[in-house]
């Protein structure tokens, strides 16, 4: 949609000096230890890093699921870190799409209904059928999660996340539970959505091969962003070597 991603007027997210400290008893865990980053509108970012390095913590904070200990998260110029529960709920509802490793579909609703669940309360949603078509599931709309494979379930989760036309799509290990072939189908769906809806997309993964499909790759280490690389040339998900 947007041709020029290198010079955006306003970043979607501007994160500065973010820390998150968990104190359980007398042990203090610094999950995030001074993170600065910006995410541009429409960009696709991949986040890599060893287990425990703080990726999920960051994603949860910018997704409005959690609050930082210190630091600031600006979403489209508005401060998120001080928001109350009610505001965060509204923020998630209006602006964020989530995709998780374990799909989190509602087992009592069909694929179509799982998407409709979100579009019913969204301001400017797609048709649930269109969202499912975008991830190639137009033929499975009336199936319940129990009748779908893991990859299909994850694509329903993606359709559900994008059906409200979110500003950001946050994916925490979306392919973590899938085999390579299925993982590629899911990544293709994500790439297509990113292209067609322009949603800023952040993908956490342990698969370094996936880094090539992103505009930018952030590497985490001990609660910090250790490096950020820009891909001059991106590859298609189908070309990812698993």
């Amino acid at each position, binding site marked *: 949609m947007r041709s020029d991603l290198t010079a955006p007027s306003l970043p979607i997210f501007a994160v500065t000096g973010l820390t998150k400290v968990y104190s359980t008893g007398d042990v203090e865990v610094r999950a995030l230890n001074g993170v600065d980053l910006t995410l541009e509108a429409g960009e696709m970012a991949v986040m890599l890093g060893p287990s425990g390095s703080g990726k999920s913590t960051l994603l*949860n904070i910018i997704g409005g*699921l*959690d609050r930082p200990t210190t630091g600031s998260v600006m979403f489209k110029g508005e401060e998120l870190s001080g928001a109350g529960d*009610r505001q965060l*709920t*509204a*923020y*998630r*509802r*209006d602006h*964020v799409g*989530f995709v*998780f490793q*374990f799909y*989190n579909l*509602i*087992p*009592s*609703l*069909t694929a179509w*209904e*799982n998407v*409709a*669940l*979100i579009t*019913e*309360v969204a301001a400017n949603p797609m048709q649930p059928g269109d969202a499912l078509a975008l991830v190639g599931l137009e033929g499975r709309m*009336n199936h*319940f*999660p*129990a*009748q779908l494979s893991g990859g299909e379930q994850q694509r329903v989760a993606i359709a*559900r996340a994008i059906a409200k036309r979110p500003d950001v799509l946050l994916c*925490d290990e979306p392919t973590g539970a899938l085999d390579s072939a299925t993982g590629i189908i899911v990544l293709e769906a994500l790439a297509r959505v990113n292209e067609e809806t322009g949603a800023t997309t952040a993908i956490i993964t342990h698969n370094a091969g996936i880094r090539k499909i992103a505009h930018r790759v952030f590497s985490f280490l001990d609660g910090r962003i250790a490096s950020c690389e820009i891909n001059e040339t991106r590859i298609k998900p189908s070309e990812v070597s698993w």
Partner: protein
Amino acid sequence: MTGLRMLDRKLVRDLARLWAQSLAIALVMACGVMTLILAMGATRALEETRAAFYDRTRFADVFASATRAPESIKADIAAIDGVSSVETRVVNPVIIEIAGMAEPATGMLISIPDHGEPSVNRLYLRSGRMPEPDRPDEAAIIESFAEAHGFQPGDSFAVLINGRKRELSITGITLSPEYVYAIGPGDMVPDQKRFGVIYMHRSVLEGAYDMKGAFNDISVTLSHTADKDEVMARLDAILKPHGGTGAYDRTDHMSDAFLDSELTQLRAMAQVIPPIFLFISAFLVNMILSRLIALEREQIGLLKAVGYSNSRIAWHYAKLTLLISVVGVVIGAIAGTRLGHGMASLYGEFYSFPFLVFSQRPDLYVISTGVTFAAALAGAANAIAGAVRLPPAVAMRPPAPTRYRSLFSGGSGGFRLPFSQLTIMALRHLVRWPLRTALTTLGTALPVALLITSLFAFDSVDHMIDTVWFRADRQDATLTFAADRPEDALRAVARLPGVIAAEPFRAEAATLRNGHRSRIIQIIASDPDTDISRVLDRDFKPIRLPPNGILLSERLAEHLDLKTGDQVEVELSDGQGRRVLVPLVGVTNSYVGLNANMSREALDRLSGIGPRLSGARVMVDESRIRDLYAEVKQTPAIASVALQGISRQRFKEVIDENIGISITIYVSLAVIITFGVIYNSARIQLSERARELASLRVFGFTNAEVSSVLLTELGVMVVLAQPLGWLVGRGLAELVAKGFESDLFRIPLIINPPTYAVASLVVLGGAVVSALIVRRRIDRLDLIRVLKTRD
């Protein structure tokens, strides 16, 4: 550290985690235990005390009265096959005058033998002594009356014996098996102040009532092998020439009949209420344990894999069940015992026994513990069997995802029902476990039913008060003459101070027969269109008494197997032995006693003795009531006076007193059940759906929207439970009303809409509170933790 100890630790932690749910279940069990102990303990207390008291005082088996029978026939009666002892007496109603009390009290003056104890219906002396034979003004009185007036031996009061005022000196205070429940004429509840029983020597009463060598009351005890009906028939035959009014047995004896109805009520309570609680606790145990085992299937698999035996695992979960039951039993036993003592002292107020001890024998506790454990284990059995059946390998895998059916979304052809996806989630979950939904609904319906079953009594009593005192017997007082009088006596009554209006009546004892069925009854005759006291038809409309024929109350007509239009054979107990066929012209409504009504014209014709009056019903000017009381006490021609105005008040007082107690008890019981069912069911749903609900929160649904999924589900069950509860409640109320029905009184089945509403509101209130407690947990769901784990 042994494995057993580790499992026990798990047990303690499970209990600590599930404490609120466990406590809710334990409380439901406690209610079962409490009501069981209470009902069984009180039943036993009453039954055993009554049996011991009757035995000790030789309470008669058969009773009869006559106008005047010569003492010589006592031998004939004693000779009846099956009769073991006989006591003849002179018994008369009296008006009692007590200093400082305006309204006259009524009493029964009963003779005791001049020498020695009576062989039947002995007295139990509480204090003082029995009267001396040579002192004609000495009397013993029953305890309830003495206590109400603070009488001690040595005090005195006056009675009007055959028109003469007589000062009596109290020598002793006694109890009698005939007046354990001492209720005066025209009263529906005991009024200890206004009803006294007075015992004096036979020779004194024979003199006072001109009954030398005669008696008018007889009681007999029977041998074990006696044929009671045969004895009663022979007794009737012997007494008939002497104005016998028909023998009756203990079932028709006021005091014993009231005791019996109390016992019936207690037994019904023991049979109906504790099972409700036990059933619900079994269901709740099943719910909580099934969920726990479902959550712990991996742990169970692991335990089995490392070599724990099935029986050890089963015992582990059984122990959890038993621990909850122990808490329930302990709370229930303590509450039951304490309330039992309270109940015994409440009985002490109404029933005059020499002693009344709430039974606390250990077997009562053993039985209640046994049935509670059994119910809990029965509820647990199927869940535990599930744990035992789990093969270790399968147990280690997560359960297959639940499959739902595509209901509530409408047809496939693009048509959709107007349900939001959140509502569809709730509804599909409901139908996914139909049995659980049905049981939860039933569990919520039962407290509604319980409330209706207990509260309907007040509607019925209101209706009875309205019918008996505001539609039928509207008089302020009923004056009964010492002997039947000619018609001009009515003018004398009308002239009494304060009397605004008076209606005469004639009462004659008669035997009514239809084929082999017969009944001895008082026929009450009044003027055709009376206004004060009226006979009501089955639609509660006053009936104009026809110049011919007889009207019978519903139950009496049933006893005699008669329908309107049939002929009933009437034989007056006047010793003449004339039998006349009289048409049954209508069936009447009556809640108290068995009634037969005629017009005076018809009864006068039947008796052959010209217009006669037995008494009058009067309306009284409130401001002059004291003058009337004073005059009545002075008037020898008036043998007794029943004060309907005061009865009415006293009845309302007693009922109002009871309303408070029973409403508190039943509302608490209902709230406990509601809480137990709804809270547990909500907690289990929350546990099953925590992940789903947290996901909804992640997607930006508000706490209110997320809670609505759970609350919709609960709401549907609670709403469905209401009509079901009304239906079950009505059914149970009908059983209760039927169970109470006796010849003495009948409770109409009246349930007013507000009663249904109150029952529902209490349960809805309990449900809302339970739901709100669970809602707070939804508000605190940990979103991130849920996302890290898979189902």
